[in-house]
């Protein structure tokens, strides 16, 4: 039980790994492009948690700064990706990624 009293690095990493797996799961299994985007956000945030955790236990500000950049990047990415999804919807009348495979041919 003592282990629960203090939240250590492993707890952060575990959370981050769970988040990553959930994100990957969403990305790999969902058909809806928006849900996949959400999965991607989960993966990014799993990485952010890792950055922050290592930053705290390392005593430097590099991880914090990096995570800030990731957040900004994620926002930009979401904006662009959503724009793409909107365009895909305009062309294919669907956001189902399994039906959008015309690059294969």
């Amino acid at each position: 039980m003592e282990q629960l009293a203090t939240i250590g690095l492993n707890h952060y990493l575990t959370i981050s790994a769970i988040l990553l797996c959930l994100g990957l799961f969403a990305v790999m299994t969902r058909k809806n492009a928006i849900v996949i985007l959400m999965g991607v956000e989960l993966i990014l945030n799993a990485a952010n948690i890792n950055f922050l955790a290592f930053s705290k236990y390392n005593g430097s500000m590099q991880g914090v700064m990096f995570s800030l950049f990731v957040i900004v990047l994620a926002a930009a990415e979401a904006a662009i990706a959503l724009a793409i999804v909107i365009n895909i919807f305009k062309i294919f009348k669907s956001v189902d990624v399994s039906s959008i495979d015309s690059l294969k041919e």
Partner: protein
Amino acid sequence: MHSLIQLSIVVLLLPLLSFVTLIFFNRRLPRRGDFIGVGILGTAFALSAYIFWTVIVQSYDPAFRVAWDFTWIDLGNVPGVGPLQVKMGIVIDNLTAIMLAMVTLISLLVHLYSTGYMAGDKNYGRYFAYLGIFTFSMLGIVLSDNLFSIYIFWELVGLSSYLLIGFFFEKDSAADAQKKAFLANRVGDIGMWLGILILYSQFHTFSFSEVYANLAAGKFALSNAWLTAAGILLFMGCVGKSAQFPLHIWLPDAMEGPTPVSALIHAATMVAAGVYFVARIFVMLTPDALHVIAFIGAFTAFMAATIAITQNDIKRVLAYSTVSQLGYMVLGLGVGAYSAALFHLVTHAFFKACLFLGSGAIIHAMHHEQDMRWMGGLRKHMPWTFATFTLATLALAGLPLTSGFLSKDAILAGAIGFANVEGGGIYYLIPVLGFFSAMLTAFYMGRQIWLVFFGESRTHLKPADPHHGDHHAHDSHAAHGDDHHAEHGVHEVSWNMRAPLVILAALSVFFVYSPDPLDGAKGWFMKMIPTPATVVGAANPQIGSLPAGSVLPQLAAVGALPETHTAEGAVAPAEHGAAPAAAEHGAAAASHGEAKGGHAYSDPRQAEIVHAGHAAHYTAIYISSVMVVLGIGLAFVVYVFGIIDPAKTAVAIRPLYLFSLNKWYWDEIYQATFIKGSVVLSKLLSWFDTNVVDGIVNGVATLVRKFAFANAGFDKYVVDGLVNFTAFSVNTTGAVLRKLQTGKVQTYVVMLLVAVFGYFIYYFTRLIY
């Protein structure tokens, strides 16, 4: 250039001009241009007569000679052989001058005669053109100073003879005859060419004088047998052209040509070219070659005479008579009676031309009847023809007071002398055959005169000719075409056919040639044509043993003369200039003097024969006179007095009669041997071709085909297989890889994860071990 040379070139080219003009323009000219032919020949004859006058009458020198030559083809310095040049040139000596005058005169007379005989022929102009090219070629032979140009003109003469024999080419017999003549001549010409090549291979020159100079200098490196072979091969040209046995078969058939052509070509000039040629090469003939020539001549003379006695066609009798007389000439050259043979050539040319033109007049008058059995009694109708024909006949038979007597007796005397010198035995066969032929000649000519001119007309005896239409088909004498009842229309011929007869008959009398009616040797002809000394053989026994360069010291000595003189400091300028020229021409000039009578009797064998011939002169006269009288007497007995019936005699000696009538079966023999042989050989070769040669070709083709199939299989299965396999593997790989590219982002993510996990597994595995 000597003015005579210039004149002779003009004479040579004039008939060519006539040919070129007439062959292209005869249809545009009035009278088809016959006046051009006659006029040009008249000019040529006038110039030739001038040359004759200058050479024979004015200079009257047995050794007269002017020559001119130029380099025609210069091959430069041929590696391994030395400098090679082919020269062309003209030589005029007494023989040339006489031949020139004779050829142009007879040609002129034949031209003139043809204006009457050929009148109305549809190819009248072409006929005169052919006469022109013939005269040109014949003059070329006469004027040539070297073997090469003689050979060229020799072939041209053969060509013009071919054209003229086949002048009535619509007739099969004429077309066959022209082919036969040409082929028989080719056989002889091949031999002649080989003979020329033997000499050329030794001396690298065609010129007569240079060849003889080299021979006299002993430069002939091969054995004497080769020289004999060269002589006999060159003589083969004469055998073909002069219709000697065994190539005599073409001349009688050549009578298919127009009769004036027979007179010009096949009696007087072209066939004499062979004899003329042998005379030109006389000095290089070895005794062995001369023996062959003598025997061939004697046999030809005899054989042709026996054939002539039974022929019924007026022209065929004369044709065989020509062969026989040419045999005499060849015999004469063979036995060394050089002057006599050439004398006979000229006298024979005139009287035989007269006979042929006379027979042409008869044929013309009889509306193309040539068979003597249906003639007779023409004496009254054609007095001019009769008189001239008879005179020429007497000359041919060799009766005293005629030209033929002089020349024939000179030959026969030479033959007796030859047999005496050679030591008798088989050599006496030659004079015996000669005398016997003289008797036969008298007999068949007596028969001909009687059948044609005496007695009554036998035209009505002629059996109806079912092929009458064919008989006339070849002639376009349309005016006479329909009436074949000759007795209604026999008439003397017009002046342009009569004049040549008279001129030629006048030239058959003795005083034209010799003041003594019994001895030709006293006449100008035999004085102007002395027998040249040989450059080989008995006079030069060391021939062949001398090294090839043995004449060099002699030349070097001549060339060294100026230097010697300079050293002595006493050189005359004239000598200085003359010496190199002498060095250049020394050999030729020296031997030329020897060859052309300067040392006429430096050759002991020849001297002995000539001497023995003179000794035998009166013997010959006696025997031949007896023979001629016998022959004519026999003809009278048989045909005039009727004591012996020719028909019954023919039955009594039927095998002999048939043997003669069928011309000794030579045509049949040649048919059975050479022609059949050629056909069999050609069939054999054809079989060989189709089966062996074609077999080889086809075999190679099959092999190549098999190989090609094998190659194709290799291509198809191995090369293509490799290519296809490459394509297939790429295709397969592509097909597999294509499966990976689904186009679904999530699949790629999975693959990414797999790859990352794979990497981690790999990494950690490396980390652990």
